[in-house]
């Protein structure tokens, strides 16, 4: 532990005042950060946050409703969906499978369940995905030394307009008596 705290100290050194300054990459790294995350089989996530009644998609997207690859303003359904996610370059079927509507697809064509939508996001946001796997971006709960569950990217980011939405803050603390702030 002694070594660790010494190193941590070095790392944190002189940063307190200047928050804009860069630290040098620590030399004591023992983790191979470049390594791709291990198997994702063991990732526990909550159920995808679908609106009520929308899943399975194939309730409507059956053979009688053929897919339509043409980018257009949707008239008959999903009018509430606004694409604000690199919209000029993107259309629904870049992410949603045309023929298996209950699934997403990667660039390779590989199908992915909604419970693994992070694989889709990870294709374009590899850095965030790596941090998420490590428990640094996003959030995990459970045991710090054992079983954990992850929030999906889409628990925090709407896949169609992913900017994090502002929240109403909880009340401020009471001001101390006589305080003038």
């Amino acid at each position: 532990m002694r070594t660790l705290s010494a190193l941590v100290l070095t790392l944190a050194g002189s940063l307190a005042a200047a928050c804009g300054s860069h630290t040098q990459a620590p030399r004591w790294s023992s983790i191979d950060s470049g390594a791709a995350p291990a198997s994702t089989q063991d990732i526990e996530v909550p159920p995808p946050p679908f609106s009520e009644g929308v899943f399975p998609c194939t309730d409507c997207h059956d053979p009688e409703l053929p897919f339509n690859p043409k980018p257009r303003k949707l008239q008959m359904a999903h009018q509430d969906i606004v694409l604000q996610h690199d919209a000029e370059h993107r259309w629904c079927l870049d992410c949603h499978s045309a023929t298996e509507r209950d699934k997403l697809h990667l660039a390779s064509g590989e199908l992915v369940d909604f419970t693994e939508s992070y694989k889709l996001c990870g294709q374009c946001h590899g850095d965030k995905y790596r941090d998420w796997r490590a428990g640094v971006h996003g959030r995990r709960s459970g045991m710090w030394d054992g079983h954990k569950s992850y929030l999906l990217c889409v628990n925090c980011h709407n896949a169609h307009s992913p900017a994090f939405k502002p929240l109403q803050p909880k009340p401020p603390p009471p001001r101390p008596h006589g305080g003038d702030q």
Partner: protein
Amino acid sequence: MSQHESNAHSSPGCGAHACNCAGESEAELLEVPLTDGPIDPEIEAATRREFLCIVAGCAAALTVGGCSEITHTNFFQKRFRELGPEERASVIAGLEKEYSERFGKAVTVSTQPAREDVQFGYALDISRCIGCRRCVYACVKENNQSRDPQVHWIRVLEMDKEAGIDFEHANAYYDAETVPRPGHFYLPTACQQCDNPSCVKSCPVGATWKEPDGIVVIDYDWCIGCRCCMSACPYGARHFNWTDPSLPSEEMNPETHYLGNRPRMKGVVEKCTFCVQRTRQGRYPACVEVCPVGARKFGNLSDPNSEIRYILEHKRVFVLKNELNTRPRFFYFYGL
């Protein structure tokens, strides 16, 4: 920042205002009834606190905070750390009984010790925090803080993006329809669990110390309420119970730890313990699990595969007031 917590810039040490009352205490010292026979335990407890208060030269706290009725402590109880297994069991059984009766539910008081292979560390991503204060209230709930008057262990400071980190001009009282407010960033503070804790050094009675896993704890039954630690802490992280804490039974969290979230009394100091009652069981602190932006990270610094080590190794990390050499276990980082 508030009046009595604005000592953020005073240098560590116990020379500050709160403890400078040696002059007045001399006369009072003579009034202290020094008994050596057994008397009513309530009086004894109060007496011990009073006596030690004055010995410590902190009579000011006495007159304001005062000495509450503490039914379980007695004059001869050793400090928690020195209790043998049997004595400890009996103290705990007494507390559990007292709390269970008071709150009308089965309250447990754990004494689970630190695990040998564990060094706790915390990291907060200030590029994500939006200042929503969910953590503040999750902490109050988990840790049985007083609801009236409100005691908050976490304080979220709003700062100007232009100005950068500047405690002098930080605002803890911001309110808005939504956060983040444009042009601002947020820096939540709480106990930094320093490896070189000025609070511990300032305590005249040894009522606060650092545990082997890194958590700085307080024995509320040994605390005399002199508030030396509060003026020594450069982070304003310690809070004093000026009155009897109020904690409605239905809101009381019955899973407690002796050194953590068990109910406190008037006249003692309290602060964040990294949720010792949860984290010693392997769970994440309450604030970590509630944070909607996922800015709060916690884990074992000794474990090379922990998220906390990943952060120290891969992110830009800093500590608050590094120049004071307090060596915090609480890191801030940029997750971007």
